[in-house]
């Protein structure tokens, strides 16, 4: 597991925020399985993120105020005959943190061409 640097986000957290921002742009919010599916699609992977890993990361992001969650109205879930979804949204702070992290990573990532310079 990558070591966390103070104030920085780990890879999965960046991916969650990125995928979350995409999902909520279309749907307004997102839930666990939709997020796992989007993460796999973005990475071109067939395996979905493990339950424990995904929900632990979401819980960590919620504690830092980068995502917020609410439980879906029970009547909607009852009407569709399924368990209630926990609906997440990336907060303003989450969007800012995502942009800052991706920018920092872009700056820090060595260009492949620099090896031949």
């Amino acid at each position, binding site marked *: 597991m990558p070591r966390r640097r103070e104030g920085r986000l780990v890879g999965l957290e960046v991916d969650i925020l990125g995928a979350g921002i995409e999902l909520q742009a279309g749907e307004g919010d997102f*839930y666990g399985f939709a997020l796992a599916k989007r993460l796999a699609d973005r990475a071109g992977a067939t395996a979905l993120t*493990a339950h424990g890993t995904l929900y632990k990361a979401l819980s960590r992001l919620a504690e830092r105020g980068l995502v917020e969650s609410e439980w879906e109205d029970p009547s909607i879930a009852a009407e569709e005959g399924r368990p209630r979804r*926990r609906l997440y949204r990336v907060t303003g702070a989450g969007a800012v943190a995502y942009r800052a992290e991706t920018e920092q990573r872009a700056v820090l990532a060595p260009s492949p061409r620099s090896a031949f310079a």
Partner: protein
Amino acid sequence: MSAVTLGPDGEVELEASARIRHRAAGRVDAAVLAWCQWYTADLPDDVAAERRAELASDLFEEREYSGARATGSILGRAVRGIPADLAWRGARLRRVALGAPRGTFPLAMPALAHLAAIALVAWGGFIVWRVARSVLIGDWHGAADVAELSVVGLVLALAGSWLLMVARRRAFAGLVLAIAAYLLIRFGTYALMETSVSFTAFFSTSTAQMVLLNRVATGAAVLFFLSIAAWWTSAKPAAESAAESDGAS
């Protein structure tokens, strides 16, 4: 956002919602939910209910998306997530411990009880294995009831250890383990004696002391498990106490 905040009866509503199963759900889904039930067992009710409901929803949605083909993926996701589940549980328990009133020992007491229960199961397993081996090779000359009581003791020790994992059943687990300790130490020692010539010889050289030792060990173990039962009968679960003290402050 069409959503509601978890109300006072929110946990009950979530638990009810989490019981909805997809028509394609099978044993793997049940096993994953049982695992979640276990690792959230002694966490605060709202935290546990939310995790179980969230997982139930995830399983349902994956079944809805992939149907019967989701079984391998669900199993893989659950297994790969075990370290994260345990780390999350540990962090939550530490938070409960930090908020718990002084003298409630929400981490130390369960750890001590689990350790004692494991020791009792190991002792019972050893006795039953020795007796079974002795019977199979035709070397058993002891009384049948001593062997039977040892087996009953092991079954009770296993049941008690399982009950100990569920926070609300810990007082009852203490009682079950006290009975198991009585059977396994009081009669198990005699059963063990029948399976070992050297142990019999050792016992017969100092019978009075060995009988005394057996009774003291039995008494100590039974008292320990009865104390645990009394501790959890009188005390509220740490999670509840912590929640109450949070509410009061």
